[in-house]
């Protein structure tokens, strides 16, 4: 089920919220878990069994690691088994077709194989499971003996499909001790509506523009058209994913949970290092905590640090998908981050802010070309068009796209900065009396909600981009 579907908005969510709020405290986790399993099974009736088995596997692995914690050798063996099993399952679903296709390309004969679709959310819940078992092994958290609580941590529907990747230590306490209140419900609902509007209005419309432009052969694109296509994709993926994350954090708050934010206005960054501190924060934190630091982080020689960074960024690319374009995208960011750290970072800091901002945006936009391209060849052709290798500088079609969608682009630019949210806050909080502020909030947020619904009803089916990862 998708958060932005009519079934979710008008049936699933109201019913689950009503039952959850009416139910006695001791039943709340069970209700939320049952709702989460139903939510997942709605879209993945076959793979729900895989998710349940993964929960059981990691629950028992956690108990086993804890039981052996007094014996370092046995505990190590147990954690290696748990990590290997999780990675093997993820790698099988994500990469086996890619590997076989690659082998077919090398070998004289094509290897026939059976295709299995990638289970939705597998990358996200596997990474969450890994945070749990690794932190139990490192004794950073206690083992969860209640299987229902553990299952809820993994399966909780607000963050199950596309994150944020929640570390067990961040939510352990809340699994048994959290509060719901009218204020939290309202705050959660407002965050959810902001996310819905980001997705339904800006992301989906930007996606349509990008689709139209990317359907053109790159050789027939003018420079302006190619940049507009890339900018439209940049807005689509940001508002799609950050919209989803806002909805997830908002929904969790409605059920009494506090999750960390996953985005912090990444497009205002003045370096790529800063961009990755603001984009998909939970994934970057995961790689830093569970890969980069264990590899030695930056407390080692410069050469070793470069190797560590390249490993992390290659893995980040691979995490996004089994295709060369994602690997190149990851390596691209690895190289840029290494360069910022060891080559031109200090000089970059001395440049005026607008120049640093333009540098960051250009690097990010070039990165998105690798990300959205179906192949490396396409990416290179598209990049060539962006830098004058297509059909001229600006054609009539490109001007038409720009002039007919200027309002959308303006909204997207404002929404990518703090100005957008400040504007909403000014509208709702610029009143003297509390009653007036409440009334203004109701009008603004209901307005956003109904506009979003209007877009969803008239638009085509548009799942979130990050579902495929």
């Amino acid at each position, binding site marked *: 089920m998708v958060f932005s579907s009519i079934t979710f908005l008008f049936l699933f969510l109201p019913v689950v919220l009503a039952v959850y709020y009416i139910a006695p405290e001791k039943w709340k986790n069970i209700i939320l878990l049952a709702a989460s399993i139903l939510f997942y099974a709605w879209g993945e009736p*076959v793979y729900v069994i895989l998710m349940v*088995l993964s929960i059981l*596997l990691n629950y*028992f692995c956690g108990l086993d690691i804890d039981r052996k914690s007094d014996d370092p050798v046995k505990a190590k063996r147990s954690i290696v088994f*748990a990590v290997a099993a999780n990675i093997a399952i993820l790698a099988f679903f994500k990469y086996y077709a890619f590997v076989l296709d690659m082998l077919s390309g090398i070998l004289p004969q094509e290897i*026939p194989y059976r*295709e299995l679709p990638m289970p939705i959310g597998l990358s996200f819940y596997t990474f969450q499971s890994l945070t749990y078992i690794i932190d139990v092994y490192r004794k950073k958290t206690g083992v969860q003996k209640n299987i229902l609580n553990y299952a809820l941590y993994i399966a909780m529907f607000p963050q199950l499909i596309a994150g944020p990747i929640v570390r067990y230590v961040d939510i352990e306490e809340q699994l048994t001790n959290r509060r719901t209140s009218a204020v939290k419900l309202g705050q959660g609902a407002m965050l959810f509506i902001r996310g819905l509007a980001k997705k339904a209005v800006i992301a989906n419309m930007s996606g349509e523009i990008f689709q139209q432009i990317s359907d053109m052969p790159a050789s027939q694109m003018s420079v302006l058209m190619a940049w507009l296509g890339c900018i439209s994709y940049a807005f689509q993926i940001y508002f799609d994913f950050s919209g989803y994350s806002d909805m997830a954090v908002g929904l969790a708050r409605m059920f009494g949970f506090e999750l960390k934010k996953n985005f912090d206005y990444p497009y205002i960054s003045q370096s790529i290092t800063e961009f990755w501190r603001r984009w998909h924060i939970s994934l970057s934190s995961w790689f830093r905590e569970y890969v980069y630091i264990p590899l030695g982080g930056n407390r080692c020689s410069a050469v070793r640090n470069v190797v560590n960074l390249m490993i992390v960024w290659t893995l980040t690319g691979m995490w996004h998908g089994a295709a060369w374009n994602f690997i190149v995208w990851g390596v691209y960011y690895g190289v840029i981050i290494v360069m910022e750290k060891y080559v031109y970072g200090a000089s970059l800091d001395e440049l005026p802010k607008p120049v640093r901002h333009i540098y960051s945006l250009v690097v990010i936009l070039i990165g998105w070309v690798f990300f959205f391209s179906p192949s490396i060849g396409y990416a290179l052709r598209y990049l060539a068009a962006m830098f004058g290798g297509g059909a001229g500088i600006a054609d009539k079609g490109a001007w038409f796209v720009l002039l007919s969608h200027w309002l959308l682009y303006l909204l997207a630019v404002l929404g990518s900065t703090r100005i957008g949210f400040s504007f909403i806050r000014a509208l709702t909080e610029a009143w003297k009396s509390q009653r007036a502020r409440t009334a203004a909030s109701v009008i603004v947020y209901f307005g956003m909600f109904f506009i979003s619904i209007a877009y969803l009803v008239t638009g085509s089916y548009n799942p979130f981009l990050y579902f495929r990862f």
Partner: protein
Amino acid sequence: MTKKRAGLPEVAKYIVLAVMLIYVVVLMLFTSGSNKSFEEVSETVSASIDTENLTEMSERMLKRNFGLNSADYDGVMYYASESSMSVEEVLLIKVKSRGQIQEVTDALDERTQARIAAFEGYGSEEVRLLEDAQQSVRGRFIFFAVSSQAGEYRSVFDSSL
């Protein structure tokens, strides 16, 4: 006794992993698609079709009967009876992306329901065939058959992957 209890998580984790492996094998056998080309699969399926009753239909008929554009997909094979009193048809589609599966299965359901409503009351045999229609989604392949031999066609489709 205490020792046995302490070992339970270890045994359980191996059992769960074994169940997972069995589950994946079952998925591979019964729900997986294939990297075979559309031509390879459709050739095998079309060779089994009773061409005395069913004729290969054009893209236009696919659009008219299902509302689907064949150009949107990797491949389409569509056989149907030319008699307006027969409901028999076999359709095989390979979609370009999994996101297209829903639109195709919705179109199949819609057509089946519309035809059941049309034949209800006077074509009990046709209604029975429609109700027993075989539909299967295997990876990016979608198979649909309304026929007295639908089960056989489905078996051929399954084994062609």
